[in-house]
């Protein structure tokens, strides 16, 4: 019989918050990053804009972290 403790559930919730948002960030950055590299091959001066677009989804995992800390 599995017993659920408050601490255990808390830890699990934190893990889910981090894993879910981390995965979401990674997935989004993967898609954008590939497109950004493609654009930069065409025009190198797009580096700044490409960087901005690629790091946009990073915020998702920061939200996850904030939520995990607040739990």
């Amino acid at each position, binding site marked *: 019989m599995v017993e659920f403790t408050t601490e255990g559930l808390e830890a699990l919730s934190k893990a889910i918050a981090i894993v879910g948002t981390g995965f979401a960030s990674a997935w989004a950055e993967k898609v954008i990053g590939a497109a950004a590299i493609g654009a930069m091959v065409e025009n190198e001066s797009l580096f700044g*804009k490409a960087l901005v677009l690629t790091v946009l989804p990073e915020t998702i995992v*920061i939200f996850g972290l904030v939520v995990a800390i607040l739990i």
Partner: protein
Amino acid sequence: MSYPKRMTKCLVAGHKKHLEAAVDSLHEAELLHVEDFVDGDNPDFEIGMPMQYGEEVSRKLVKIRSISNILNVKPTNGTVKLPESDVSKELDAKLEQMDSEIDRNTQEMSRLDTRVKDIEAAQKELLPFLAHDLDLKYFGGYDNIAVFSGTVSSFNESRLLEITDAYQLFTDSGSKFFVLFVSKKHEKGVQTFLADSGYRETRAPNKSGNPSDIYAALDVEKSEIHAQIEALIAERSTLNEKYGNFILAGDEFLSILSEKAELPLRIATSEHTFVIEGWVPTSNYDGFVAALSEKTGNGVYITTLEVDMHDNKEIAKIPVEYENSKFASPMEAVVDLYSRPKYNEIDPSSLIAISFPLVYGMILGDIGYALVLMTLAFLVMKFIKSDSVKKLMYVLIYCQISALFFGIIYGEFMGFPLAGYVYYGEYFPGLIPGLETIVYDYALFYGEPFTFPIHRSHLIMTFLAVTATFGFLHLNIGYIVGFFDVKGQHGLMHAVLEKLSWIVIEIGVIAAIIAWYLGLGTVGIAVGAVIAVIGVGMLTKGEGIKGPIELPGLLGNILSYTRIIAVGLSSIYIASTVNDIAFGGLIWTPADGFSVLMFVSILVFVLGHSLNTVLSIIAPGLHALRLQYVEFFGKFYASGGKAYKPFGHLKKYIMEE
């Protein structure tokens, strides 16, 4: 806060006989950003023809660049600056001389290359025949014997015996290569048998002698040729040393001539006159006019042109040159990485010269890493002279000064706490014996009293609040800058509606929260709410429906600043994990005394911290940059200006007299 350098639009016109003198002095002045003339803009003018000497210059330029390519001339070959007159005088003779010396070398080289390829092809052909090493003369020239050589997928000798027993077979189990001699009588039958077995013919080379002897002879020839090629390469490097410096100077001399020769292609000309339009920094305008008039003997007419500062198309044409203090100018590289400011907007270099290192320092905040990276930056500056690298190193140094400052506040050295502290009753010693953390009697959150030095990992909630507040302030600086930008471009009304409205909304929300917190009741909250609604109304009027849609984004932007603590913590945890693995008892602890394992521990320590140092440049740098680019710039910065590129040439390898 400053605007880009002010530019004056000017027009240089004159008789065509003065064109060459005008182009020469424009090139020397290196101030005029030429605006290209577009054919059809004005029916009385057309694009000019390149100068007559242009064709010859291009021809020589192609030649000198091909020589430079063959000799592998690098910028490092430019050891001394050569006088311009010498380069001009000697160019033709030297080109001739270099050409003849290199021509012989390249021809010989290509002959040898071809021979090596031939040899390699011949050796490849011989390869299968090496196994049996039968003299190649036996593979042909018979009246009554047929020869088959090649590979089959599987050789069934019993089926061959059914056809004939008059044969001689050589097989090689490894490569499935075989040679078969049969009587001509049975040639047809054997052919059918082989075709069924998946036969692929490999013809013997038309030579005589043992394959292994031929192969070895070819090997000898190949190594002789390689020696000759080496000699030719050595000759090239001698030539490189002899001519490298001159080639660079000659290339530059010819490039300058070519630029001058081609300028007429960018300007308007009529039958007898030429007109050049362009931009000169306003502060240099008087000097520019004086220099040009003097050099051309007053042969050209120069005047300023009016610019309509309400016409966005016209503004977009104005080239943008930064004008910053010495302190902020390294940041131009960071702004350029994003995009240059427009002519009529505030250049954010001086703003991020403060906020970028500040955020970086808050994230990294480690005395050890700051010192390592600062030393690295100084070393790079000492050994690499490139201007763009220097600028980036200055940025790195600013960041490290800030990281050092926060390192002292956080009391961290390479991930170790400097001062000892008590956490939940347990005592953790610091790196400096006797230095203890001072605990103050004040806390923002329960269980997180302020301390000095501040231990980040024990003040997480406090830091979340502090970093979010920092973000809130930073973003509002963005709105205020945006307010002045819009005010300058479209007037006060637009500025209030588009930018001030955000601040009104914030005030409303904060008022409501304070009223709720202080228990002022519904009236207090309602006052705040009304202010916020007024703000939203203003925003909708200013930005349209897209304004309110962006509202929740503001919260996201503020929370995004909590990465300052998040990334900082990750760096601490990596560092302290490395310390735990190295000296925490997994491998070795100082209590174990001297042993071989101590060196393993030290190796882990050095490798782990090297990794963290590299991450410490990349992670805080990228995250600090991102907060400037995405969150901060997003509030005011339009960007997209055109870089100011004056007509002229920085002389690197030739010297003016």
